[in-house]
Each structure stands twice: as C-alpha cells, then as structure tokens.
C-alpha cells in the first residue's frame, strides 16, 4: 500500500505502526527552532556585549553549543522533540520504535552539516524524497525516524440506537468498514454521512437518513451490545 506509515515488528511479534512526518512539517519545525536560536543569540549578544572580549568569548561558546547540540539536548531530554518539533506535533525515535538514544541523536545531528550541503538542506531533501521513510542522510546513518505524535483520541460515542442483526454475513473488512463509518459519522456532516451510507443501499435497502440509522444499528450489533 502506498502510505506514509512505517511498520515494524516488536519482539512480542506485534506489528506496530508509526506515521512518518514529511518534508514540509519538518521544515516548519526547523524554521521555528532556527528562530528560537536566533532570539537566544541576539538576547545573549546584547547582554554579553557589556562584558567586552570576555562576553564575546562566552557568546561564541553559547553559539557553538546551540548550533551543534540544541537538537541533541532537546531530543534526549524532551522525549525526542525540539520546541519546533513539539509545536508541529512530531518527534524523533529510533527506527525500531524505541526512544532515540544518545548515540543516534548525536549521529543524526552531527551529520546535519552534510544534509545541509550544498545549501539549505540540498542533499537532505534529495535523500528524504527518494527514501521510503523520509529519512535524511543523518537519519539513515543514525537509524532514526521523524514521526507524528500518536494523538490520544477519546472513545468514540457511537450514536445511540438499537442493535439489529446483519441481513447477510459480511467479510471482516466489510464489518470493520461499517464500524469505522459509525465511529466517524459524528465528525462528518450529516449530508456526507448520507452520501456514504447511500453506497450501501444494497445492504440496508434504505435511503437518506434512514440508511445511516440502519448502519448504526448494524454497528451496535457488530460491537456486541445486544
């Protein structure tokens, strides 16, 4: 399937899936982090200017640390996300699904300088575009992924209603489609719900709002609330 989902198998034999973050969202995160760094440099620059040569030496040290280790420190201490990444709802993890390690974080951020070549992440962009998991060169060498935070969704309130047995057996995929439709129907407009439900006219034998209601009844039955 053509998808931005990265699946890996855990030692328990379970397939876990993660949504890979693409170029645009990562670029936005980077830009946000860049702005933060620039603000840090300017504010320190103003304060340290009063300390003369000593202050400038200190500023150089601060710039050095921020340029090379800003992402490493945040990735390690803040669950894989710099402030920019957190803002965009993405974070860095190892490609086996475990939290990013020091070694991996250091590799991906030191190699950033190669990704940046020849200018503005030229090589990194090429790498991301030809790689299935959107990895830049640093991610390839470190074995890391940039993924979306899994957002915790509240339990869907199935619209209230009775249960009714399906008129004929459905395959598991079809059953799941009915359930999924019902779970989602609260978040889409009634018109769209009816439109979708109309596709199942052969099953429900109804039209419009009634078809939607009928599907709800099937969903309740499938879910087992008899």
């Amino acid at each position, binding site marked *: 399937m053509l998808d931005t989902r990265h699946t890996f198998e855990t030692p328990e034999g379970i397939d876990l899936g993660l949504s890979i973050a693409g170029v645009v969202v990562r670029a936005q995160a980077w830009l946000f982090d860049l702005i933060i760094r620039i603000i840090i440099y300017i504010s320190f620059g103003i304060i340290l200017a009063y300390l003369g*040569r000593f202050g400038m*030496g200190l500023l*150089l040290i601060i710039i*050095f640390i921020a*340029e090379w280790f800003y992402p490493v420190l945040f990735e390690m201490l803040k669950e894989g996300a710099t402030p920019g990444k957190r803002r965009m709802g993405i974070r860095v993890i190892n490609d086996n699904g475990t939290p990013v390690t020091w070694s*991996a974080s250091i590799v991906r951020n*030191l190699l950033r300088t*190669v990704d940046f070549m020849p200018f503005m992440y030229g090589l990194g962009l090429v790498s991301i575009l030809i790689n299935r998991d959107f990895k830049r060169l640093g991610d390839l060498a*470190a074995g890391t992924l940039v993924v979306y935070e899994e957002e915790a969704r509240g339990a869907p309130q199935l619209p209230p209603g009775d249960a009714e047995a399906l008129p004929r057996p459905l395959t598991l995929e079809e059953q799941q489609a009915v359930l999924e439709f019902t779970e989602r129907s609260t978040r889409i407009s009634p018109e769209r719900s009816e439109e979708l439900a109309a596709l199942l006219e052969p099953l429900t034998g109804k039209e419009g709002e009634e078809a939607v209601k009928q599907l709800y009844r099937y969903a309740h039955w499938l879910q*087992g609330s008899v």
Partner: protein
Amino acid sequence: MKQKAFEEKHQQSWQRLDAQLAKLEKKREAKLVLADSGEDFPALYRSVCHHLALAKDRHYSPHLINQLHGLVLRGHQQLYTQKRPFVSQIVQFLLRGFPAALRREVRLLWLATVLFLLPALVMGWLCYGDREMIYAVHSATSVMQMESMYDPSNSAIGREERESDSDFYMFGYYIYNNIGIGFRTFASGLLYGIGTLFVLISNGVFIGSVAGHLTQRGFTDTFWPFVSGHGAFELTAIVICGVAGLQLARALYSPGRHGRINALKRAAHEAVPLVIGAALMLLIAAFIEAFWSSSSTVSNEIKYGVAAILWLLVICYFLFAGRGRGYHGSQ
C-alpha cells in the same frame, strides 16, 4: 467473542497498564518504583500485546485497535529503553570506551595519521628549504600577519599586553572553530570520505607549511613553545575525527556482509565515541592554547617540559587505558 465482552473482560488490565506507563513516562527511575510495589509491567505489557493481536485478528473496531496500539507503542518505548546512570556512563567512557574504540580502528588510525602527517612533513621540508615556498599555499597578507605574530622582536611586547579577558575570547573562539572543524571532519566522511580526506590533507599542508616557514625564518623560540603544548591534544583529536570520518567512508565502499545502509548505521554508531572523545580533547586543547600556550611569563624550558608530559600522557592513555576485562565499548 464480541467486542463489548472483550472490552469488559480486559478493560481493567488496560487501565492498569495505562497508569503504569504514565508513572514510567514521568519518572526516570520509575522502573525501580514499579518493581518495589510488586507490579508486573513486562507481563502486563505482553498480555496487552496479545490483546492487540487478537483485536486485529478479530477485526474489532478501529478505535479499540488504535487504543491498544497506542498502549503497546508506549509500552514498547518504556520496556526497550536504556536507563543507565549518566555519570557512570561518562566515567566508563573516559576510562575505557574512548581509548578502546580507537584501538579497534588501528588500521584507519594509521591511514588518517599518514594522510595528515605526510603532507605536513613534505610541506614543512619544502618550506624550510625554500623561503618563497610558503606563498604557494598562503596569501602574502596572511604570511605577513603570521610572521609578525611570531617575530621575536615584537611579539613579546604584544603578548604581555594581552589580557585575561582576551584569553577567554580566544578560548571561546577555539571551541567554536576547532571543535566545529572536528565535527565536520567526521560528518563529511559521509561523502564517500572525500570531505574527511580533504580536511586531513589540507590541515597537514597548512600546519606543515607554517611550521617549516617559521623555523626557516628562525622564529623557533616563539613558535614551537606555543604550539607544542596544545598540539598533543589538538593534532591527535583532528586525526581521531579523521578516523571517525573514514569509518563512515569504509562502510560505504565496502559494506561487507551488511547492506550499505546497515553498514553505515553500524559504522556511525561505532564512530560516535571517537567523535565525542575527540571533541573533549579539542576542548582541553582550546583551554591549553588560550591560557597556557599564550602565556609569556612562563619560560620556554617549562613549556617544552609540559608539552613532553602532555604528549606522553596522550600516547599512554590511548595505548593502555581500558585494556583487559574484554570491554567492547559500544553500547
């Protein structure tokens, strides 16, 4: 089993796992806390893995599968994470990991040393023999600056006037510049070694030509005491960064039994101790260069003596530190 019944049966263990995860995610030492309270995080985690597999197989509703998937994902991250005390990790690294990692790459170490030293010696010899040779690699203005910096007739005055806040500025500058170069030497190994090769050779040419030229001009008493001290750390560290860069390059040229990407991954992780160790050495070098090498109150004999001790220290460290007990450094 219908989904509702399944949910009712297992809801409790899901809530328990969720609570345990919340604890683990909040506190770093929470694993110990859990063990003490008799809770069975790994067992609970594995049973929820099982539930997820069942839920998927029975095609329960996407929401339930997502919920379990989320729990398992979080559990996976907590179970398969390394939480070792940070301080002991650093001590282990300095006493064993770093020198052991370098000794594992003796062949690359020789290669990097030759790539650096050979151009340095050749250029040094050429510039020592021919006063004009220096202009082949440096511009006239930079040669003039260099000469005035080390000219015994005026540098002594200039140096005595340099104040301590200026020393600190140079310290900051050396950190910013030299460690940055070290990191780039490593990183550019990813370009099939071309970047690393270039940094090693060009640094060799640069340093060799300056040393040869200044010796030829007879500025030995100002130049050599200045560079010999921090050179022990700085030159070694640049070569070590070169080794780390060549490790990346080697993985790309001859991945061996691994796929190219996997070979690169292994090489990069093996190179990390070298890069971090070299960065620390460059930090020490920056300190020595800024506060000791530039000092004009210390006599040259003492400076040479200290330089000899530093070189000996560095060599002994890499030869002997962390030997025995079969330590393998990589984590």
